[in-house]
């Protein structure tokens, strides 16, 4: 892709530009948290317990005297990782399965249909909690639990798209050229079928942050004393009446990041609709 000129950038949907700006900033903070955080996120300061927001501690301190702002900043590293790792593997695996199911059709498709029915019958969070409780709490097990369930949604989207694409002339042309099925599906059909899944991926990353922080809140995701937004909100829940800042500020970060992904997804969908 060539470098975009300023005038083309200006024609992009506003949602896309805002979303991209939020996320680029989030990725930078997540990559270099120490450059932005004024304190060590784990350093306890027993002189400044539950200190309200001030110039020295803009977001206040928690019950161990840890700087809430520094913890929110360092949590970007974990939460942005959750957004990526909880969705990347379902995206890849679901895309491959969906492409095959959509291309082969027939019995494979019916069986896949029943699997989808069954998976969406379990409340997603209930199933993920149940799997995490089997594997034990922690981030890696959380990724596995989300992945076991999450691929189905990508596969369903891709299968429907590939089914449309394989009836088009260029797929027949590929077959006439004697290309292998794998080459037709993955080199030719998939690139044309993948856009709805990419749009869904953006939404899914927002959902992954909500899910990851929910599990952190329940004690099943990232483990204390790690700085993660859900864990931080749980840390502060017993101090809500007296030291609201411990829980409230991490929530802002969740909302801002979620908003970034949703806006980017909406903007992307708008761009792709316009192109068609």
């Amino acid at each position, binding site marked *: 892709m060539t470098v975009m000129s300023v005038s083309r950038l200006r024609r992009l949907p506003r949602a896309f530009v805002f979303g991209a700006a939020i996320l680029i900033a989030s990725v930078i903070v997540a990559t270099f948290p120490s450059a932005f955080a004024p304190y060590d996120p784990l350093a306890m300061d027993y002189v400044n317990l539950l200190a309200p927001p001030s110039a020295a501690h803009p977001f206040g301190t928690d019950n161990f005297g840890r700087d809430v702002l520094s913890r929110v900043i360092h949590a970007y590293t974990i939460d942005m990782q959750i957004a990526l790792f909880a969705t990347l593997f379902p995206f890849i695996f679901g895309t491959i399965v969906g492409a095959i199911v959509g291309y082969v059709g027939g019995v494979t498709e019916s069986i896949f249909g029943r699997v989808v029915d069954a998976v969406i019958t379990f409340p997603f969070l209930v199933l993920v909690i149940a799997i995490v409780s089997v594997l034990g709490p922690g981030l890696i097990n959380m990724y596995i639990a989300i992945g076991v369930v999450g691929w189905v949604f990508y596969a369903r989207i891709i299968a429907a798209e590939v089914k449309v694409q394989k009836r088009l002339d260029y797929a027949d042309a590929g077959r006439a050229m004697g290309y292998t099925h794998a080459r037709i599906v993955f080199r030719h059909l998939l690139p044309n079928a993948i856009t709805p899944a990419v749009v869904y991926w953006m939404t899914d990353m927002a959902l992954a942050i909500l899910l990851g922080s929910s599990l952190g809140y329940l004690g099943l995701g990232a483990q204390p004393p790690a700085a993660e937004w859900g864990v931080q909100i749980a840390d502060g829940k017993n101090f809500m009446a007296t030291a609201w800042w411990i829980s409230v500020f991490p*929530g802002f970060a969740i909302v801002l990041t979620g908003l970034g992904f949703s806006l980017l997804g909406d903007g992307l969908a708008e761009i792709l609709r316009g192109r068609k």
Partner: protein
Amino acid sequence: MSMTAFLGRRLLQLVPTLIFILIVVFVLVRLLPGDPASAVLGDRALDADVERINRELGLDRSLPVQFVAFVKQVFTGNLGNSISMKIPVTQLIADRLPITMLLTFMAAVIAVVMAVPLAFVAALRRDRLEDSAIRGAFQVGLSMPVFYVGLILLTVFGAKLRWFPVGGYGDGFLDHLYHLFLPAVTLALSLSAILMRNLRSAIIGVVDAEYVTFARAKGLRANLILFRHILRNALISTLALFGLSIGTLLGGAVITETVFAVPGAGRLMVDSIYGRDYPVVQGLTIALAVLVSVTFLLTDILQAWLDPRVTK
């Protein structure tokens, strides 16, 4: 296809789904950490006692035999006894699940009450200030985790203003409604955001549709067009969406009930996982999955009834 054939086919589809549910739950529970016998007896159990418990629970037999026995038990309504509470799981579910269902139902009603009028305003004032404000607010709502919203509502309206109780379930139906109000609003927020978004585009689609232009041309009054034509069509898509969201709602109920200390099925699920009370986890997972399938079925039927094209 006739309605009866549609119903028949739809009911038939339920069978493989139910079998799959049972397989998943069976496998999952067999993988749970720590053996149930030591959960009952504590860590210093005698080997003989462990064996006795395993025999009572049927854990000494082969897996296929265990599975057949398990399916038989489920269909006779016997889900075993809770290890920690020593009472039948079916009774526990019968006690706790209605609370979750009431909570979910209240949340759905609140979500519709919030979403429908605002969706109309947003759609009819499309791309103006009202539209942007409403969509922006719901977008933020959609990005807020349930436990965070709950915690803030609990602190502001429960602990500070004391308008609502800070937790529990109360006595008597009206008191239940009062206790569940804040949790239901919490749960309703994300659903109402999805509903509003969907309803808004559905209304825009209908407003632009030819039959509405035709109705206007015929001289039908504006309000009549809105309510008879637009609302009916918009509600069909909302209904479909609501059916699909029931799983998300129940998942949200797990967290909401934990935040507000509501003694429902979701709270029971979390407690049972921490307490390794595996017959309860198993029974609840089945009950929740069945509840979702039945909701899917009901929304499908309602949809078919509202829109005859669905059965075709």
